[in-house]
């Protein structure tokens, strides 16, 4: 297309992109892209690299008189320990629905926040909880145990007493 063939354009109706604008637009978009990536990069800051949570391992002594199937909840911990003929195991008391601490009852666990119910081994009986209560790793022996809230074991894993 030759220059003469172009329709005359007015000041109010300029060409969509003139040749001269291409470099300017390229510079503008480079700057915007660079700033965008910079912004995304700076969002790494709020994501903590080191988590300030207290140690997840704790020691616990089970009373000798603890009957089989009855929960022992160490003070200040959201874990229930059980001892039966097959051994010792620890069930988390943190509801898998929205993180409330469930209450231990003789038949299982109930969550006060949204009504989830779990059986004694942590299986969901009713309510909105999507997952069973996890079992934590237990080590030690002879009445003294170490529970690691950071390590889960498959349901049914018991430590031989």
């Amino acid at each position, binding site marked *: 297309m030759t220059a003469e063939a172009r329709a005359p354009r007015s000041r*109010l109706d300029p060409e969509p992109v003139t040749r001269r604008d291409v470099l300017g637009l390229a510079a503008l978009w480079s700057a915007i892209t660079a700033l965008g990536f910079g912004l995304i990069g700076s969002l790494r800051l*709020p*994501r*903590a690299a080191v*988590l*300030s*949570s*207290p140690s997840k391992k704790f020691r616990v002594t089970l009373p000798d008189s603890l009957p089989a199937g009855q929960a022992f909840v160490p003070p*200040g*911990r*959201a874990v229930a320990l059980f001892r039966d003929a097959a051994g010792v195991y620890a069930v988390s008391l943190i509801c898998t*629905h*929205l*993180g*409330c*601490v469930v*209450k231990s009852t003789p038949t299982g666990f*109930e*969550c*006060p*926040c*949204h*009504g989830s119910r779990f059986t004694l081994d942590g299986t*969901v*009986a*009713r*309510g*909105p909880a*999507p*997952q069973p209560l996890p079992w934590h790793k237990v080590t030690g022996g002879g009445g003294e145990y170490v529970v690691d809230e950071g390590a889960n074991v498959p349901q049914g894993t018991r430590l031989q007493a």
Partner: protein
Amino acid sequence: MSEQERSSSALREFARNLRQAPRRFLETVFRHGPPRTDRTRSTFVFGNVFLHLHAARTHRWSLRWTTTLGLGLVTAAAFVITLVTGVLLMFYYKPYPDVAYQSIKDIHFVVPTGLFMRNVHRWAANVMVVAVILHMARVFYTAAYRAPREFNWVIGMGLLVTTLGLSFTGYLLPWDQLAYWAITIGANIAQSPREITDALGITDWADIGGLQRQLLLGSDVVGEEALIRFYLLHVMLLPLLLVALLAVHFWRVRKDGGLARPADADRRLGPPPADAYPVFTEAPRKTYQLAAVVRGRTAAVGNGPEQTVPSMPHLFYAELGVFMLTTLICLALSLWIDAPLKELANPNVPENPAKAPWYFLGLQECVSFSAFMGGVGIPLIVLAGLGLIPYLDREERGTGVWCGGPGGWPLVRWATLFGLAAAIGVEAFAIRCGWLREWFPDIPQLVITFVNPGTLLAALYALFSLFVVRKQNSVRAGALALFTCFLCGFVVLTIIGTYFRGPNWEFFWSPADWPKH
């Protein structure tokens, strides 16, 4: 003139200037006379950086009190009140676990007027939440979101979400039992996309939920990092965002030609009152407008100024009246009911029942069916639906009229009936008969996530609204039905969450029936 005379005349001038300084100072502050003529009334508006968000003249339709009920202004006024009282509370509040609780107790019992300021802050926040919801309903029912106001409706939704965010981050700060368990539940709702990723088995490499929770809490437990983050959101990020959105919201109201009014507003209003001052007697003979070089129609095209009145005093006095009324309501509520403060946060024992403030209890009812759908899925669907309304409804009938357009009031009455019946019916069924997990204990979680009372209710509403679209042959009628239904659902769920849920979120007819511990 001798040297001496000249210096004495300069001295006289100095004395005269000094005498006139106060008057001159006022003249430089207000660069025009008192707003008595139409011209000075206009300069009063556009010569002032704060007032010029308004147009210099306001249409008479906008000033009828049934046009807006003043709801947007109530919201803005309540925000200003929370801003002032909030800054005052910051003098004493310390964002650190346990210390935070003590500082709120200090504000409550020791700080002069502390209790009163906290009450006003809390009540103004509540008024703001109510008013922002009602304001949205007003804009919807008068179809004021239509062109050219589509995007301002979307900005308004941003303001609604920011307002709710401010309320949520606000009631976390006292670090009492309500605060602690609300942060816990909120952070876990942020983590609830895991309900989907776990079911699909992709959590290990696409853990969006975990990332969101970690960004909110700054840790994997609720503690000092979480509190400082919520404090930052509450006093800095969200208020700044709100002010920015508010400025755009107001500015666009003006740029979109003031408030929406029916096409025949001038005829409905009748001629201006006989004593009204004629508009163009003193107008400049020429007008210079940027609009001359801008493409497209400006909002002023086709809208004569004959039905407008000067914003000063007509609009500003009305605004001042609404502001005073809002302040009065907040003060009266504050003198009547104190803001609650529960026991110090106890990470081992949640309250039973652990209830959020009333405006989140509908949401709490939804998350008691499924964390992800109730806390993330349904709210996102509702927001997306609301945001699409002005882009789907491009009809013209009924703009600016309450329940205007196809269907009208009878449709709204039917939709109210259906909305209430469906919500009560679904809830009654779920409460009496339980849900899928009780019937089929081994059912996959994904099924419950997508088929639960909350999603069922949303689907019923959507079907009803599609039926209305077909029957009335109008998108506006469908939107009218859907919006009414969701409003009814919100009310029903909120009432059930507030009055009929007891320990373990069980249904009780009255708190008197709650089991004693």
